[in-house]
């Protein structure tokens, strides 16, 4: 084997390994779901089933909160209502889901009244604690009970608005108290993407 043949063999081996690695990556990479994907069945405030597939078919805002929440949750709901007002007709395709992290207290009727007091555009979502837990895991949401002095409890929880495209794919976030102009631009981009 002369040096030239040896070089060709060696380079061929490099190409084969590279193709194999790429193929393995494509194969192993999850093609269904991705971040936020997974199996969970919850219920909307109107009593309709809610699954990962419910986040497809239109761009969506997704927020995790609870009704016994004194500050962040009503504020975020109010901001969602304000964003809808600012978007006007452009906001028509945009959906919004408020998923409870406190399913023990937030029944469908409770969460339905709560969100609709602020905006008819927001859909309340609840479910059994185990199914809500599955959805929290899928979205990397932190939620933890914290006892209060009066025997009641509050929930520490992720307070980010997730932005999801019409294929159900995660596209970005709006942070709590994010500047309104930035938030609006993010929503416009999401809607434009479809």
């Amino acid at each position, binding site marked *: 084997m002369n040096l030239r043949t040896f070089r060709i063999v060696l380079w061929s081996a490099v190409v084969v390994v590279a193709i194999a690695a790429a193929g393995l990556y494509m194969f192993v990479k999850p093609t269904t779901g991705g971040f936020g994907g997974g199996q969970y069945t919850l219920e909307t405030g109107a009593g309709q089933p809610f699954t990962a597939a419910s986040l497809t078919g239109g761009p969506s805002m997704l927020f995790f909160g609870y*009704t*016994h*929440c*004194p*500050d*962040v949750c*009503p*504020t975020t*709901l*109010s*901001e969602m*209502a*304000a964003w809808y*007002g*600012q978007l006007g007709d452009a906001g028509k395709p945009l959906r919004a889901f408020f998923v409870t992290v406190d399913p023990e207290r937030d029944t469908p009727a*409770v*969460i339905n*009244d*709560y969100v609709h*007091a*602020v*905006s008819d555009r927001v859909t309340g979502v609840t479910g059994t604690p185990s199914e809500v837990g599955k959805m929290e895991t899928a979205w990397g949401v*932190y939620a933890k009970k*914290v006892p*209060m*002095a*009066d025997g*009641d409890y*509050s929930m*520490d*929880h*992720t*307070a*980010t608005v997730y932005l999801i495209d019409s294929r159900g794919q995660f596209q970005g*976030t709006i*942070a*709590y*108290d994010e*500047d*309104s*102009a930035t938030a609006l631009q993010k929503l416009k981009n999401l809607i434009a993407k479809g």
Partner: protein
Amino acid sequence: MKLLHLAVAALAVLPVIPAALPLIPAAHAASMMSMAPAKPKNWTVGDIVVSGAYARATLPNAPVGGGFFSITNKGNADDTLMSASSPAAGSVQLHDMKMEGGVMRMRPLADGITIPAGKTVALAPNGLHLMFTQLKQRFEKGKSVVVTLTFAKAGTLTVELPVGDVGANAPPGASAPAAPNAMGGMKM
């Protein structure tokens, strides 16, 4: 940026008002939005002055609410807000809220809130606040909530918190825009 945020939100909401109140002439609607507030009050006991007090309107099925104000200690010694109570709620607690890495964390303050001598401590959204639990009824915009504060040195002080919007960041009628989220209030 916060002011811009509030201003933009308030402007965007304006066109909605005539639509939401078709039977009320626009001029009347405008005067309703100003809410003709009483001049913001201060309350004083000993060296303690409480000002800029307000509460946020609560949503249905939310038996909790937040109360906010500034406490100034004009004295030469530190004082501590030890506790609070209200006929409007089963319990009133002193809380601190923090955003950490996108997670909202709320903690009761068992040792109260210290007001250093000569300083002002603000209870405001996203931080220190009064947390009303077991509400007797919803906090409605335009009404007010009575709270009795107990200080370690100055004693007790009863103050009145006018109720603003769900997302209010200032007392109703204060110079800072208090109604960035008026849509929430409009529906109630």
